[in-house]
């Protein structure tokens, strides 16, 4: 137990929280933007998976991590566009579209992986590139803090920027206002000549960009290859984080952080010999408990008045 406590208070552990939460931050920001626009995108998981594949594959082909990243973004945006096209133009139910896209991604990436690497499991046989880790000059040398804050993958820093971007987008840009207006009252936006289809499409595409980053991080930062179903529910967890954060950028970021902590704790607990089946539920139990406490308090508050 003592060892476990030591582990949890080590810099490595705190450092790992940031690593764990990076894809969640990206995806939950994607969820926030699309949800506020009234088009809840539940295909986060699938979009990230496709982006992860594409980033790996193109960085392998071109031997350039940058091109890999760009292609990951393009891929996620392209499929977010497919979702937008079907749901906005053809009026496919967006949830159904999301489910369909997730299954497309899960099967499609394995299929492509097989074509590319003659392997249905991982792409390790393809020497793909990774995005660099960044060491922040002065901070790096500060004890403890340096070990926690410096040396992360560049996309981890970008994910923090993504939170700021989402926050300011929705708070103080015209696009953000249009997104909010369309999500809250479509007819109102329409009546002042805003194309609601266009705004919702842009919101979905933006959530695609976020998923592109999240996916690229998975295959070009977190690890250096693509593997089948490598997102392992991170997209769904991001969705939960977004709901827990009440559709706000900062709230969802906080929820992602909590989730990252819980996940890191569960990893540590698994290595301490606690029953692994139960230990792996820690993040979910934590989220459930957090949401329950949160809801009960909100309910009480509302009831008082």
């Amino acid at each position, binding site marked *: 137990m003592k060892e476990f406590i030591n582990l949890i208070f080590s810099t490595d552990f705190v450092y790992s929280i940031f690593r764990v939460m990076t894809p969640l931050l990206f995806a939950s920001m994607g969820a926030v933007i699309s949800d506020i626009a009234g088009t809840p995108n539940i295909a986060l998981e699938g979009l990230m998976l496709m982006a992860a594949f594409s980033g790996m594959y193109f960085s392998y082909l071109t031997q350039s991590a940058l091109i890999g990243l760009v292609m990951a973004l393009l891929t996620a945006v392209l499929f977010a566009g497919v979702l937008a096209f079907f749901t906005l133009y053809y009026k496919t139910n967006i949830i159904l579209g999301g489910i369909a896209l997730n299954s497309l991604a899960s099967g499609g990436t394995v299929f492509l992986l097989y074509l590319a690497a003659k392997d249905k499991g991982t792409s390790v046989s393809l020497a793909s590139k990774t995005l660099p880790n960044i060491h922040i000059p002065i901070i790096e040398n500060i004890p403890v803090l340096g070990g926690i804050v410096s040396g992360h993958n560049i996309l981890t820093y970008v994910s923090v920027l993504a939170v700021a971007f989402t926050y300011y987008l929705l708070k103080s840009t015209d696009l953000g206002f249009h997104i*909010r207006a369309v999500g809250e*009252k479509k007819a109102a936006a329409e009546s002042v000549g805003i194309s609601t289809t266009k705004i919702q499409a842009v919101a979905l595409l933006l959530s695609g960009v976020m998923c592109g980053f999240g996916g690229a991080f998975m295959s070009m930062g977190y690890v250096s290859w693509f593997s089948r179903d490598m997102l392992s529910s991170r997209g769904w967890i991001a969705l939960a984080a977004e709901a827990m954060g009440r559709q706000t950028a900062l709230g969802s970021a906080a929820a992602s952080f909590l989730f990252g902590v819980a996940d890191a704790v569960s990893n540590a607990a698994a290595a301490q010999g606690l029953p692994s089946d139960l230990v792996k539920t820690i993040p979910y139990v934590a989220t459930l408990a957090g949401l329950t406490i949160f809801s009960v308090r909100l309910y009480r508050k509302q009831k008082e008045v």
Partner: protein
Amino acid sequence: MSDYILEMNHIAKIYGNGVVANSDVNFNLKKGEIHALVGENGAGKSTLMKILFGMEQPSRGEIVLRGKKTVFSGSKEAIASGIGMVHQHFMLVESFSVAQNIVLGMEPKKGLFINHEEAVRFTREMGEKYNLPVEPEEITKNLPVGLKQKVEILKALARGAEILILDEPTAVLTPQEIDQLFEELEQLKAQGHTIVFISHKIPEIKQICDRITVMRSGRTIDTYLCDEVTEQQISNAIMGCELNTSIERRKKEYGEANIQVANLFYTDKSGVQVLKNISFCVRKGMIFGIAGVQGNGQVELIDILTRRRAVQNGEVRFYGQDISGTDQKGIRGISFGYIPEDRLEQGVAASVSISENMISNNLENQDFQKCGMLDFKKIDEFVDKNIKGYEIRCAGGSQPTGMLSGGNMQKVVVARECEHHPGILIAEQPTRGVDVGAAYIIHKKLVQLCEQGSSVLLVSADLAEILKLSDVLAVMYEGEIVAFFESTEGLNEEKLGLYMLGIERHTPEQIRKAVNWCE
């Protein structure tokens, strides 16, 4: 070149579900006029205006704007051509501030971000220019309807609307607000704006409009000069037949007090005392009217009576029984009916069929059940009877309620609440947005119900309605009852207005009669 600024010729509109909303409409506007568009519910007025505003595409016909044939593929183009529309239902983003709503879609910017100061300044400037003062930083959700209506008009004008379409703007306004609106419209007219005015209230049309176009069943009947027709003639043209809307009242005979409210106080979330010592009682066989400018506590009072708000202080009894511990379900069990103000929000479930909407408050009724299941034969009989009795225009009881026009939807609500003969009926704005014919049916029903021994509490902003129906009448001002009339004889709208605006008030003894009178 004609002298019309706008002509719409042979317009037809068929909706995707096969409903023919407009079949052959001819409509024109002269520059600088106020033009009324009238017709029964579902006649196709809103549809025609949505076509003009580019929100719907006509199936046939042409639009000629300033002598040029025009096709609008969206409202953006219509706005650019100087057309503005205030919709029948508010088109405001409730969580935005007034300024944000006004500049929505044309936000001033500073670099990448919105320039809030500029938006506020612009809103103030527009408000002053058109004499429609609004507070730019107020959150829209918190505004009373009258102000929301102003924001809507300002929104259209701020976009440079020369032709302004107002779809039933007065349905939700109080007489004072209507007067103010009319003043503003006159000013706009003087500034050269052309206004299309849709309303079901014929007197106000006579008051403000220059010409009137009447529609029926998706077609234009004719266009009249306002000065050349009487109210009765307009009404006849709308309904397509002679209609006598006067209501016979029988001898008044009151029984015991079914609703008793005593010393009711209420303080809302923001700490404002919205109800102050309200006491009254409604006896059997009586229509008790409550008049007042909106926002003087009526909403909170009704919310308390219908169990959507807690009784903080004071007493409410139905049939002598304290109801502070019961919920909405509970009072439904004791012969209670309620016609809500907002039919779409509470009154109906739009995707559920008319039949099911009509029995939703009476599911425990054994008549409608057979072996634990709903007895659809009985239900259909009941529903068909009501569709006939209330002249609800629909394809049948199995049609989803959401497909009905607003007036017909209202009739569904009234039929449901009245046909179970509740001992207590609370009617809140029962004829809002309803055409003359339907309003007449609803009025007749309320009177009939109280003749059968129900207690009806009627809250309405429509003074003509309240004067016509009420047996006794209370006026609310700033959360208090400031006047109580034992009879409406000799009362008129002007007189009532003085009490509603707090200029005059009755003595405490007279007001106490609202309670004492029962003993």
